């Protein structure tokens, strides 16, 4: 499914403006340890994490993730959002815990 469809079907909030929501999401990866994410993540996945700091953007872009989903109702700081917009990376905030967030993706067939 596309990021747009995910947003419509979950009601989760995309916090980036103008970043490309037509990208496909092919699977997902959950971790907050950046070297695990670097080593195990795959291109076009959604990355589910509770990390919201600036280095998340570099990891997501270099790993070619489709989008980053911040779980647990946490919020991305303003500087992180603007860096993501520069990189055309979609950031989404989910109010659910990591497990429930992942379950939602599975239910939707991601």
């Amino acid at each position: 499914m596309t990021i747009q469809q995910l947003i419509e079907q979950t009601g989760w909030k995309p916090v980036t403006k103008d970043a490309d929501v037509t990208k496909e999401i092919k699977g997902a990866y959950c971790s907050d340890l950046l070297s695990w994410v670097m080593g195990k993540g795959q291109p076009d996945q959604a990355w589910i994490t509770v990390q919201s700091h600036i280095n998340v953007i570099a990891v997501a872009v270099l790993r070619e993730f489709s989008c980053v989903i911040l779980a647990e109702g946490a919020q991305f700081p303003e500087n992180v959002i603007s860096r993501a917009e520069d990189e055309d990376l979609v950031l989404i905030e989910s109010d659910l815990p990591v497990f429930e967030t992942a379950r939602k993706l599975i239910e939707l067939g991601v």
Partner: protein
Amino acid sequence: MNKILQKEFHVERDDYANAGMASSQIKSTLKQVGVDPKVMRRIAVAAYEAEINMIIHAWGGVVYLDVTEDGMIHLIFQDCGPGIPDLEKAMTPGWSTASKKARELGFGAGMGLPNIKRVSDEFTIESSPAGTSIFLTFRVEE
């Protein structure tokens, strides 16, 4: 061997905000010479891990990128110290001396160096109190 491309990038100590800059510059530089996307992804992983280590464990340094006529990409990450006292330990998955601050940000899994070794075609690491150097080679075509 003749070089068809040669560049260097500077990495600053403790500069978390710009961590990954050198790696993305390396990536965009290599895009211009037409590197296989799969190879590019491996390079991105290795470059990021090595760059981050220069920022969080070392006092900054320089990254040298060379592409040679024989289709090889050479990367050297050279920092200004303090060096790694026990390389064998450092290469062990899970071993880390990352600071509390670094761990809070999700660094310090002790997986960076093992990741670099796994994704590169050739890997050499040297270290002394004067600094650590990591030499990596990748073939342009997988």
